[in-house]
């Protein structure tokens, strides 16, 4: 399943954020994503894609949706 789709679905269903406002270029803080929401998103990926939980240093500097997607895609590759 496409990582962007998972993000859009999660943020829309749980927080009412309009899917079309979520693009790879969108800064995380522009969507109002605080640390807890961000950890929830990561938890969602663990559940849906079976990827490992990323380390703190891997997520510390993520600024945009695209950077998060890139991290998740790397974690998926690790699995293969």
């Amino acid at each position, binding site marked *: 399943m496409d990582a962007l789709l998972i993000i859009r679905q999660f943020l829309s*269903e*749980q*927080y*009412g954020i309009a899917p079309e406002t979520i693009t790879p270029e969108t800064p995380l803080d522009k969507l109002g994503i605080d640390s*807890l929401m961000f*950890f*929830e998103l*990561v*938890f969602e990926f*663990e*559940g849906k894609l079976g990827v490992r*939980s990323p380390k703190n240093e891997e997520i510390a500097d993520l600024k945009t949706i695209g950077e998060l997607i890139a991290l998740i895609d790397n974690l998926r590759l690790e699995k293969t």
Partner: protein
Amino acid sequence: MAQCRVAVTGLGLINPFSGDLENFFSRLLNSESAIRLLTLDDPAGSLSLPALQCQDFNPVHLLGKPLSHTMDRFSQLGAAAAFSAWRDAGFSLDNNAERVDYGLSWGTGVGGVTTFEHGYKNLYRSNQRSASPLTVVLAMNNAAAAHIAIKLGLAGSCLTYSVACASSTAAIGEAFHSIRSGRASLMVVGGSEAPLAYGVLRAWEAMRVLAPGDADTAHAACRPFSKDRAGLVLGEGAGAMVIEEWDHAVTRGAHIYAELAGYGTSCDHTHLVRPNTEGEIKAIQQALAVGNLGADGIDYVNAHATATPEGDVAEITALKAVFGDHAATLPVSSTKSMHGHLLGATGVIEAIITVMALHKGAIPPTAHLDTVDPACEGVHHIIGKPLMDKPLRAALSNSFAFGGVNAVLAFRSA
């Protein structure tokens, strides 16, 4: 320093019948019970018992998706009740200036236990490697209070009291003292509880204090003071009040329902669950003294009475000791017969009922009370229909909790 008077200016609760507070109170006057049979099917087992559920409560509709998602049910119920009380007090949810003299005092017995139960199932049953990142902030006992304070801009004291069945009564009482002493101008007070989780119900079942019932009899399962009473009925719910310093209320043109006149609290210090009449007497007497009320000035007592064999008797014994010759004509009812025992939220629900009784001059009956247990005789039990024969001057609302904590509120008509 002179003590300030405290006005009750806003009321809000989650009506298990659906509808508003007026609807809730009129149903109680009509002896209507909201208790139904609850059936839970868990892989560990099935459970059927009488319970009070707020089945029509829709948190997403009332609070919006983002907010309700970050709340356990006990916070959802609590926030909805608090916002309702806030609006009832004449405030808007939209324009809240930070007020350091406005605070919050909340009560809950088991807090976000549903969140913990859900998390445990995932960890231990489904072998999930990690828990949801929201687990702590959903489950922590002060979560409801935090959400309410954030939304309403309450910058003063924001404390959550966890004293089992007396939680919200204690929350109200301690806030009362805050205002009386001048530490706060206004406090949002109340409590919320969402304890209808499988593990919690099994734990209560093990104490053999829950009333049995089936689909036909569940509504009448809670029979306080009755000769054939069979135990208590648990429930979920929430209530809130806005209380404020009297002049502060008058200056802003607030509608005043009643005066919160007194509060008494004591600890039995004798047994974890067995009630102690002496402790209850002390709390009642303290509430009367603080409110400068005599035994002959009380026109109604909303009893704690949960329909347990010992508890109901201990309370009537305490009332007879305090009220002496006046006991025989003292109107008493236990509205748990209709709304069940909401644990930490019970105190505020019953406080609201007591305020409404004063406000409307109408005392709801104890429902399903066909034959009074002789050990519970000696007060004027309100049975069958409400008592509406004269204006009420003052009333008490009792809460006597596991752990031996007793908390009593005294209200005076405005």
